[in-house]
């Protein structure tokens, strides 16, 4: 029961991140149309979209992973 509040906090942080990051990915990044007028503009837009989605997913992964590792290391030191 002692660890439940930090874990509730972790669930809440990942909830906020899921809403914000996946909201941005699905409603802003994916619907973007061709940004450029020149030939191959579609491909460059596609690469840009994939890169932004990848970076946003990495932000989620590293944030949640970082918090978890910091929490676990602290707890195991005191065990």
């Amino acid at each position, binding site marked *: 029961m002692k*660890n439940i509040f930090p*874990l509730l906090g972790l669930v809440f942080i990942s909830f906020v991140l899921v809403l914000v990051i996946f909201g941005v990915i699905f409603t802003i990044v*994916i619907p973007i149309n061709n940004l450029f007028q020149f030939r191959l503009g579609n491909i460059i837009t596609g690469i840009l979209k994939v890169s932004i989605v990848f970076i946003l997913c990495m932000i989620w992964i590293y944030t949640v992973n970082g918090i978890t590792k910091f929490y*676990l290391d602290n707890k195991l030191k005191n065990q």
Partner: protein
Amino acid sequence: MIINSYFNIGLIISVITCISIFICTKFLISILWKFKSTVLDFHKSKKSFVAYPGGPSIIITIVIAEIVLYYFTNESKIIAIILTTVIAGTIGLIDDLKNLKGYWKPILLLLSPIPIIFLDAYNPNLVFPLFGTVRMTIIYPLLILIAIPITANTINTIDVLNGVSSGFTLIAAIPLVFALLLKGDWIMVLATIPLILTLTIFLYYHKYPSKIFPGDSGTLSIGAMYGAIAIIGGVEIIGVIALLPAILNSFFFLASVKRFTEHKLLKIRPTIVLPNGIITAEKDPRAPITLVRLIVAGNPSSEKTIINDIMILVIFSSFLAIIVSLLI
């Protein structure tokens, strides 16, 4: 008049589900003991064996109840739910009997969402609170293809202690029903009843101390059915939020182990069971990170306390999911 007829259909499938799961599970436990199909319960100080797998009773009950629902409603969505559940359950049953390698399960589970795509039982509009709606005609079927294996594996990975997988999914199904009621999608509300009642009665046998374990056949079928209901009902975001503690558990495991593998094949287990039955966290940094390891880190606890903590986490995430369903 319409609500009255929905109420009658709901009543019929509720009675069928309750009778079927009760008889099937009781019968299955005696059959499994007769054929010595049991497994060791790792988290008990005394050596105790439990009947395994209970998945067939879950799959049979869900199929019977959903077929009855299809008879009354004639909706192809119901067929998509039945097929998705049966395919995932069959893959789980093969794993229970033959022990598939870690990577085979997610690969084979890619087959389970195919009925949803081919029967066109989905709505490609995704609704995000505060951000609005987006229509994804091309990407959405691809998302379905990975979403069902993810939900099925997520429920499979959380099945670590007595009653956790069934209790967890039962609580996480409440926000789904709430969101479907808000949408006024009565057919999908009715389609969720067999899942909720099956889990409620199965939990009676699965709760601490367990008389039966669902096995991969049980966890994969309920996970796939949960995902199918969320996708077909158009309440995907609600489903993701309600399942967050289980999703985090799978994520921690994959991020620390860095490959698809079975828990039983791990060289270093995430937790240690002390002779007095208390569960403590493994200190070895190479041990995988799991939700249970995080709960007992610096706080050795009994199995019952850990189960209660996991239930508190899913109640919290379900509460967040209900708030989000009010904002959509």
